[in-house]
């Protein structure tokens, strides 16, 4: 009951954010002269002479608020406009491109969080011991790595020396054909999951092969974040009184750390993990670009690169919604982990 009203509240809260986000982006595009904006619809030089027609047609010379209004009206009618990049309506493009990004997220996030938490705990437990220094150096290195550079280096090694071992893209040709054939039912369009649902080993294996490099790239960098966070919040809770109590009870250090300290330390990690998932699901731009893994991130990049306004706006809407809902889920998760938290308010 409380939950439902809370969700409703959050959704209502979402509206101003969305308006703000879109207004902002819309505002940026307004920095263009109508002429310049018209050229955004143009795909070939020959259309230079059509520009006035375009301006007139899309009312590009009208005042900002009017144009925003018309756009909003369209959106409410479920029409997000045409995405030049995906060559389909934006409303279709998002669900169409989401699976690829989700697939990355599904594999990267657990690895990132579990390993990150594990290492973070360890290094906090051994503060200022070699293990701690080791993990910290790793973390800082990983955190300082330019993800695109890491990606390129990985490509360099795996494309260069193990040709065809970890190929680019999402599937290799035969599997690709198989997947789109009648025998194979696409439940989620997430290759690995579909493969499992279809009990199809080869496809699964092939899909995984294509996942290794992008997932590694994503993990290395984000793991560092989680690890740092986990470490510091572990240290924090290790300094707390109840830890002393636990020790005074005669508890084994393992239990003191794994039971009493970690449960408390996890709380901030949950938030970040939520954001992490949202961020990856709404596109790991660079990774998707480098490994030609065409998902939301790649799409957003192309949209920005080719100034595909409809796509950019649509994407902004989408990711804002996603973020808010992930937050919602995180808040609900909180209540499970930390009894002190009630829906709506953070940790007292």
């Amino acid at each position, binding site marked *: 009951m409380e939950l439902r009203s809370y969700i409703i509240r959050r959704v209502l809260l979402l509206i101003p954010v969305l308006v703000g986000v879109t207004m902002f982006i819309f505002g940026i595009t307004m920095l263009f002269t109508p002429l310049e904006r018209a050229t955004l619809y143009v795909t070939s030089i020959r259309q230079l002479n059509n520009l006035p027609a375009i301006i007139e047609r899309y009312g590009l010379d009208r005042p900002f608020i009017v144009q925003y209004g018309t756009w909003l009206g369209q959106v409410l009618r479920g029409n997000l406009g045409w995405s030049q990049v995906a060559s389909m309506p934006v409303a279709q493009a998002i669900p169409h491109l989401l699976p690829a990004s989700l697939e990355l997220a599904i594999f990267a996030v657990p690895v990132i969080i579990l390993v990150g938490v594990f290492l973070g705990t360890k290094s906090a437990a051994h503060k200022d011991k070699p293990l701690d220094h080791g993990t910290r150096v790793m973390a800082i290195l990983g955190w300082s790595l330019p993800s695109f550079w890491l990606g390129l280096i990985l490509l360099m090694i795996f494309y260069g020396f193990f040709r065809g071992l970890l190929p680019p893209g999402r599937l290799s040709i035969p599997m690709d054909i198989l997947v789109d054939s009648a025998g194979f039912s696409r439940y989620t369009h997430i290759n690995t999951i579909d493969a499992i649902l279809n009990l199809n080993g080869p496809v699964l294996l092939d899909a995984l092969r294509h996942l290794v490099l992008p997932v590694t790239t994503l993990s290395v960098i984000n793991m560092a974040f989680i690890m740092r966070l986990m470490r510091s919040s572990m240290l924090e809770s290790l300094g707390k009184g109840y830890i002393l109590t636990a020790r005074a009870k*005669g508890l084994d250090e393992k239990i003191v750390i794994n039971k009493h300290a970690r449960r*408390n330390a996890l709380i901030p990690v949950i938030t970040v993990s939520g954001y992490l998932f949202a961020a990856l699901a709404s596109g790991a731009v660079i990774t998707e670009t480098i490994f030609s893994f065409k998902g939301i991130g790649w799409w957003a990049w192309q949209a920005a690169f080719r100034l595909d306004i409809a796509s950019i706006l649509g994407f902004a809407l989408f990711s804002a919604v996603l973020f808010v809902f992930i937050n919602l889920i995180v808040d609900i998760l909180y209540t499970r982990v930390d*009894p002190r938290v009630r829906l709506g308010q953070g940790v007292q």
Partner: protein
Amino acid sequence: MKDLIRIRDLTVRFYTYEGVVHAIDDLDLDIRQGETLGIVGETGSGKTMTALAILRLIPYPGKIESGSIVFCDKDSGAETELLKLREDRMRSIRGNKISMVFQEPGAALNPVYTIGDQISEVFLLHRRQELGCRARERVDNLLSDGGGLVAGLRRPFWRWQRRIYDKIAEEPQALEPRLLSHVPLFRRLLWRLPDEANLLTVDMLKDVEIPDPVRVAAQYPHQLSGGMKQRAVIAMALACSPELLMADEPTTSLDVTIQAQMLELFRRIKVDRGASVLFVTHNLGVAAEVCDRVAVMYAGRLCEVAGVEELFLHPSHPYTKALLDAVPMPGRELQTIPGALADALNPPPGCRFYPRCPSATPLCQQERPKLKMLAKDHMVACYLF
């Protein structure tokens, strides 16, 4: 009366970025069986550290430099040198033979576990055997009053349980149950242990006068009042009826009415459990209330130890005097101790109190005064005597 704890020239140092802090310096102190010993002193005088040192829980970057702490088990009479004990043996003493109640009841309880969880944890740790027996009895009862088809079906299951609890009852760390406890489904067999622990917990809570203990056991710390929390913490400390209960400023964070109840509680514990209590406080009044003997510490050193009347009637050490004068009393204007607590980073040589001492002599500056026996049970470290 026999000693329970014998501390001899204990030295604790903290290696901080700023430098070495001399938290405790050559401390000699005895805690006798069944007595309540109070340690009084200003903040940073090392009284809490003494308690922690006994548990060997000096926090990083602190370190027990030297000295010895001998623990004479009341039941077995065996004498053990705590500072030389293997860590796991030490753990079996903590919370079992020697337990501690911390200053901030709020901080001392883990916010994410229920009171019940946190107390039964102690039982599961130190009273595994006993829990095993109790569980075994229950299963036996089930087996004896057989009857009924359902029961018939569940019998083999019960037999198995019995075997396991039997093992635990004989050897708490028996292999089979330990292994089982790691196997997801089978660990369900052991559910009776926490169950029993819970029952004990509830008794315990009743014991510390917590109303409606069953409900409280299921509650989280933030749902309880400060006093309740403190009682819970005490219950936790008393769970295994320790021989030494150390209380670090157990009342300071509570308001006066509750304080009174707490002190009452402590007095009772001592009486009907015959446990010794180490009562760390900066409040002489409180000390006077509960303690049999009082030790006064200043800047990591012991100044004076004496029976409570003795100390309050004939305080010898200038510092003790100063402390007593600093206690507000009707019809006497309050005196404060001039100067500040000695800098623990580089303490003055000789007597640490001399910079603030009204009757300091040149000698005090060079040499550290030894503990002298003034009267029976009255020792003081000062050149005036």
